[in-house]
């Protein structure tokens, strides 16, 4: 039976390490038929729609089966992000210091990489509040290298 094209959207961070994404997706789909309501809880569960909650719990189950652990956070996973995008999840209270290197800002929590102009307040992937980057890092990015080289020499 051909149901037409199959399209999967997710983030690498929700796929257990060493598991091919297509294999993972098939396991998640199969697991969705089971009831994992007592398996795991996170406050974000309160804000998800029923179909999203069922899929998230199935993903957590597969993560647990593959790694032996429960995920530290699901903030980078697809369903919480969609709920956050709809404005249905309160802002995270988590804070982290980003790093800036070669025109790329890296979130201090989820390691998502962002190009200039950087997200000003929160990481768009995990919703972590980004603390001010070290002053010297920001300054070195904002000032082109050739300007530094062309700085006039001070002579007396």
């Amino acid at each position: 039976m051909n149901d037409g094209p199959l399209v999967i959207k997710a983030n690498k961070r929700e796929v257990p390490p060493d598991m091919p994404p297509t294999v993972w997706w098939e396991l998640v789909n199969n697991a969705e038929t089971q009831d994992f309501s007592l398996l795991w809880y996170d406050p974000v569960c309160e804000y998800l729609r029923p179909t999203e909650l069922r899929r998230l719990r199935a993903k957590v189950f597969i993560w647990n089966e593959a790694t032996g652990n429960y995920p530290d956070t699901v903030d980078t996973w697809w369903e919480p992000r969609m709920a956050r995008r709809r404005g249905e999840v309160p802002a995270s209270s988590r804070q982290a210091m980003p790093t800036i290197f070669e025109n790329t800002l890296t979130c201090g929590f989820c390691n998502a990489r962002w190009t200039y102009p950087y997200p000003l307040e929160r990481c768009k992937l995990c919703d972590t509040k980004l603390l001010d980057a070290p002053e010297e890092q920001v300054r070195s990015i904002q000032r082109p290298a050739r300007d530094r080289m062309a700085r006039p020499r001070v002579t007396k």
Partner: protein
Amino acid sequence: MSSRISESSVVDLIETADIGGTNANTAYTTMAHYSRARAYVEIGTWNAGDDLDECRIQQASDTSGTGVKDLTTDESGGDYDTDAPVDADGDFVIIEIRSEDMDTDNGFHVIRTRVAEGGNSGTDNVTVSELKYGYAYPRKELQGAASAGSQVYVSA
């Protein structure tokens, strides 16, 4: 007597490229003899103000792209639903199609994968691989053979 026969497949790539304000496409390659194709699109360093606006597989009647048209859709509610686009480092999209989804009656036997970003707030890096698999040698049509000709080979 037994033998292990591995499956033949073909991979086409878009090396990591900045598609901020522009698009990228794999080369047109034929699906002749292949039963399925899968596109894997992964976002790398990305700008927080941008989304992946287009992500689809297209079909054409030759490798010059004659008559190119969409095989999968990218629109609101489409196969790649643009209401929920991928937009962060590590996000991926997998699109899987079958050769019977193609308009072979009208000679469409070539595919390519297309991605695009329209906002261009900054650098948007994406990597694409397109895999064709399920190879089979041309074979005689067993049932419902055409009235003209004694042998009919399926070439697309």
